[in-house]
């Protein structure tokens, strides 16, 4: 009998160990998610004591809102421009840094510095770097007698500023992962191909790239998801997605609806639409590349 009780206690003690993560998930994931779902069906307004059920209104309204479409377009535009640049540039840098030459280690460290800067810190720092009246970049342009660039105040240039800033921040991440992938390619393969008389381009196309594909796809996946939630640079550096709404990504628009406009119900509904959008993109991506992960 006593033996049975002891076994039962021993058996159940495992639940004690999983209790902290379960509580963590319940309080910080499940509860907020549930609360957000409920909020999205109401006209809840920050500051207002009363709110009522409005059905699907908050889910339908964004599809009649040009700013919602604009923010979706801006987000997808950034993903389609930023991610290929980062992947391409990161790959080139990794290939270069995978060679043996003097100063390679120092360069590797230098290339990785942006990775350690928090996005919000960079966005704040960017206000000085991209200061149009003579900041870091325009100051140099002025000294060289070149025309200054309206980094933040002109709609077209501002888009380029976001791209530039994000590429600067995140290319090192791609570089690091791809470099690790390159270094894991067995040297024997390369050497055997060389013995067979393969050229540099053939080596890259027939061995390096195929061997790197899972790594590149992984990093591509990370960068797409990350860029879909681009927030700090357009919000902080470009004054809430400006000029106008030129750089207003979906995350910025949702934030502004909630914390500037105080319309929590609408913001919650848009968050779920955004979640569906991200899930769709990621789902399609995973489906297309599933063979590499089998």
């Amino acid at each position, binding site marked *: 009998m006593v033996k049975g009780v002891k076994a039962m206690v021993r058996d159940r003690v495992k639940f004690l160990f999983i209790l902290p993560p379960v509580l963590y998930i319940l309080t910080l994931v499940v509860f907020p998610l549930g609360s957000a779902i409920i909020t999205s069906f109401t006209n809840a307004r920050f500051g*207002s004591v009363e709110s009522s059920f409005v059905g699907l209104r908050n889910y339908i309204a964004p599809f009649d809102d040009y700013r919602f479409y604009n923010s979706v377009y801006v987000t997808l535009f950034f993903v389609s421009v930023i991610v290929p640049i980062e992947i391409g540039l990161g790959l080139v840098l990794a290939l270069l840094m995978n060679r043996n030459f003097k100063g390679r280690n120092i360069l590797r460290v230098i290339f990785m510095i942006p990775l350690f800067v928090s996005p919000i810190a960079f966005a704040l720092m960017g206000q000085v770097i991209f*200061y149009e009246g003579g900041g870091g970049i325009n100051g140099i342009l002025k000294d060289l007698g070149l025309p200054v660039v309206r980094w933040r*105040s*002109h709609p077209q240039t501002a888009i380029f500023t976001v791209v530039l800033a994000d590429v600067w921040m995140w290319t090192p991440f791609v570089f690091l992962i791809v470099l690790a992938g390159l270094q894991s390619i067995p040297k024997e393969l390369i050497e055997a191909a060389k013995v067979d008389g393969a050229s540099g381009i053939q080596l890259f196309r027939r061995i390096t790239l195929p061997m790197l594909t899972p790594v590149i796809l992984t990093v591509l996946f990370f960068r797409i998801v990350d860029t879909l939630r681009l927030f700090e640079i357009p919000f902080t550096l470009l004054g*809430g997605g400006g000029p106008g709404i030129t750089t207003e990504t979906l995350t910025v628009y949702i934030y502004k609806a909630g914390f*500037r406009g105080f319309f929590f119900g609408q913001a919650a509904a848009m968050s779920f639409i955004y979640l569906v959008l991200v899930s769709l993109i990621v789902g399609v991506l995973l489906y297309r590349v599933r063979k590499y992960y089998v």
Partner: protein
Amino acid sequence: MGQDLLKDKKMSRRQAVSTAAKVAVTAVVVGVGAGLGGYLAGTSTAPVREVTKTERITETVTRTITQTVTAQQPTPAPLRFDGVKVTVAALAGGARGPLSGPFYYYKDEVKKLVGMDIEVVELSFADLPIKIIADLTTKTGAYDGFVPCSNIMGDLVIPGYVHELGNWIADPRFPNWHPDKWSYAVTQCSQWGGKWYGVPWDSDAWYFNWNMKYMDKVLRDPDKRREFKDKFGYELDPYGWYKRRQLTWQKIRDMCEFFTGWDWNGDGEEDWGIIMGLRVGEQGPMWFVPFAAPFLVEYGPTVDRHHNIFWFDPETMEPLLKTEGMVAAAKLFKEIVTKYMPPEGFTFTFADKWDYFLNKEKAMFCWAAPDTATLAGNPEKSKMRGYLASIACPGSEVYYSLAEGRMVQKINIVGNASGCSWHGWVSTLSKNPEAMYWLLAYLSTPEKLVKEISASKFFWTGVDPGGLSLQVLTDYGGEATLADFGLPGNFVDPGYPNSLYEEGDLRRFHIAAYNNWFAADAIQHYLRVPGATAMYVSMDTHIIGEMCQGGISPEEALDRTYRDWNKIIDEIGREKMIRYYQEMIEYKKPNPYKPRPWLWDDRAFPKDLIFG
């Protein structure tokens, strides 16, 4: 008992005397010990009084008695808020910050006066309203009071988050901040439906400024004046226009064009006509709203559907954004900021814009909050001390009459209360509401607000003078003296720089403040209905962002704002919003604003440069 002792123990008389002596000595020693102990412990002990055998003991006794007398003096009555701590949320700025600074500075003084402790919670501009409202909606009650922008007033008053102050204002136990001496334009930001909910502190308004160093140089050059006349067909006479109540945005447009492209400061670069701080996400609409007011607000003796109205039709809550007056204002605003303001002005915060105007001197005009006048005297931030022209609310030569339904050709000047207008509020969740009110009232008394805080004694530039008649110089009908503003530069306080107001700058500023608050044709209402924050954000996005920077037409920008506002109104409930708006403007009641004669002082302006 003595006898029994002798009998039982068979003690001789000698032994008995000896024993008695020992007992006596022991008693003395114990007494002295007790006396010393009592002395050291700071309390009186009776036995000490009886021991006076030696000089040393006597001295000890004397000192002990002295201590006793002190301790027995009547205890002072406990201070009114002894042991009470109030927590106040204010705009982040540190111990010398524009709005947080005074709370730190008066901490010790308040503690000494009423025993209250003050804790300041500093929050960023964006976080301040969110944290305050989050605290109230979740019933956390972390703040006893707060000093936010007035645009969240409806969100504070209507759900009952803040105390109505009427009883406390009437209670003589609280400091008197003279509610009757504030201008209507300022008090509207503390009142709802005619009742006080906030304690006025800051008197924000937008003023027009120019650099007299360069303006006067041009005006003294007949060739330049001729150049202006040839180009625009009339005489350049900015001082004369201001004196005669003729300075309008239409004339300013021409002056901006004329002054763009010169190199004032000799840095080899072209300078600009005007500078503003139009960074989206800051206070962008505050630049447009007072600009547009004279195109639409028409004075009337009562607040009715067609008079003293700017934001909505009070009967339907139809936004007045698509009226001809608003379209004309938006077109002119766009023209000025896109042609005659440096493009970086669209990325400027307040600080950038002041630096550009006061320190770099790269623009002739500046349209901004009143802190410009305070900052002008600070040599660390300005090269314009003594050269700042502060001008009240330029008018418009044409405005849309809601009553007549057409544009009217007449100069219309409208005073504004644009900006944050930081006022203090007492949370209904506060456990010490009286203490919180006492503190807010104390800081708004003339002794503190006029002579120290708004006088910029310590370079707190966020609390601006102007609203309170007490704050205006005696020369201009107020009750403040030049000395109240530290002239001639006599403020000295450890850790703070001297106040460096220049008399001319100060006079011009006070004339402008007076004209804005008391002498304009009409006064514009400050938008503070529930949802006002969302409405300002919408204006910021469409008018400042999309129209001025993004290139969409004024009509399109106004239409997008119009649609957003209607959405906000419908979201909250149109019927409710009509009621709230009518309460906000005190609809159908007599207009509390009565214009006074325009103020002018020849001492403050160059007489030889008035031509008309």
